[in-house]
């Protein structure tokens, strides 16, 4: 079984404590990494690399650059592991925040943006709901997120996907979706709130 399925971005208390192989939470691994424990960090890598790399690649698209960014992300996580504050959210969410920010930084730098623009036609298709569903259809947590996304209005969902999964600014999203300027940010926020409430995300 994929060990990843036991890790959720909902609070650490939910990471099934009786898991057979590894009753260790990401928070604990991060904590050990903060003391310089490279073995713990390797375990952390194994547990989250698909989530982080997948998100980075989705935003960055270029495989070589995605790999580079992911490497930077892990270095940041390692260096800042002692700075993680569990009272502010789950470890996976914290790591994803780092990954997302670095990915977005990368695509917004000039030459990377050019690469991505060339592939925009294809990227737009990836944004649609069904194509992402195929890869993860068996996964319960993915299904859960898909179901939650279905409760959003189409515009909310598109705006959120373009912003989060494709790394566009809300102003760019407004243009892409022909929304009046200033309304994309509202759609993004409304969509996130709906997603949060539907998924029952708590801190």
């Amino acid at each position, binding site marked *: 079984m994929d060990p990843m399925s036991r890790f959720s971005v909902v609070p650490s208390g939910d990471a099934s404590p009786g898991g057979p192989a590894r009753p260790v939470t990401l928070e604990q691994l991060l904590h050990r990494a903060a003391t310089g424990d490279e073995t713990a960090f390797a375990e952390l890598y194994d547990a989250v*690399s698909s989530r982080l790399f997948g998100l980075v690649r989705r935003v960055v698209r270029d495989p070589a650059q995605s790999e580079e960014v992911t490497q930077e992300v892990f270095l940041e996580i390692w260096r800042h592991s002692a700075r993680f504050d569990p009272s502010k959210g789950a470890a996976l969410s914290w790591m994803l925040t780092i990954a997302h920010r670095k990915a977005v930084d990368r695509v917004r730098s000039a030459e990377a943006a050019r690469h991505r623009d060339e592939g925009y036609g294809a990227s737009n298709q990836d944004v649609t709901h069904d194509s992402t569903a195929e890869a993860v259809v068996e996964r319960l947590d993915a299904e859960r997120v898909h179901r939650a996304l279905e409760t959003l209005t189409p515009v909310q969902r598109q705006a959120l996907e373009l912003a989060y999964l494709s790394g566009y600014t809300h102003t760019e999203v407004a243009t892409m979706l022909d929304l009046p300027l200033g309304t994309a940010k509202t759609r993004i926020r409304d969509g996130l709130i709906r997603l949060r409430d539907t*998924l029952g995300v708590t801190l």
Partner: protein
Amino acid sequence: MSDDIHALSGAYAVDALDDVERARFERHLAGCTACQAEVESLVAAASELSVLTEAAPPASLRAKVLAEIATVRPLPPLTAPQHDSADEDVTSSTPPEPAQAPTATAAPGTQLEHADDLAERRRSRSARGLARGWRVVVAAATVAVLAIGGFTVWKQIDKDPSRAIADQVLAAPDATRYGQRLAGGATATVVRSNALHKAVIVTSGMSQPPSGKVFQLWLQDATGHMTSAGLMPGGGDQVVVLSGDASHSKGAGITVEPDGGSDQPTSDPVAFIAFA
């Protein structure tokens, strides 16, 4: 501009603000507990979307990552002034492992950090994204600056009128932006309000000036003459008010100058942003 800044929380949570909006929102966030809580929850909600994009990295990446971290020392934890401070945030329902907490989450201006942390933080632009976004932003916007000698404008930032000025300029109805992308992916955007006679520079991803040097800001008048507009910290993301009346200036520049700054630019600008 009296638009509802709270409405930016969602776009902020998914990194969908541009540099200037982000700077503005982060300034708001530092003092708005409602937005802080909302941003935290929306960040967590957005993170859930990553289950849709899972993909295993190339196997070779693991060895690269592990080899790299073996050569790097993790940073020490941020230590709050009072370790067991009663006013530490206790909203978490499940107490974290004691040894992991607390990272410093003190209000702006009250947080203390080690000098090497500061240097590191200023080097790394992504430090902001690290501790749940805004927490570190608050620290970066305040603490980082306190440790740098010579930046009188930035001292005691809580009481500092320049902070209020920056907020006003960034939110001014007549605020006009002039941006430039610098080498290495850094950006510098000047936001000017002629009504307020002030300009603010917002930088992102700047490197550090060479040792013994500082970044100095300049305003250029119609004759091409450059007048010092103060010094600017290097590294990371900065929001700095340019000193002087910017309303008639034709552009702003950044140069690298010897410690303490110069009366006139002594080097070619690393950035020049024309107000046109």
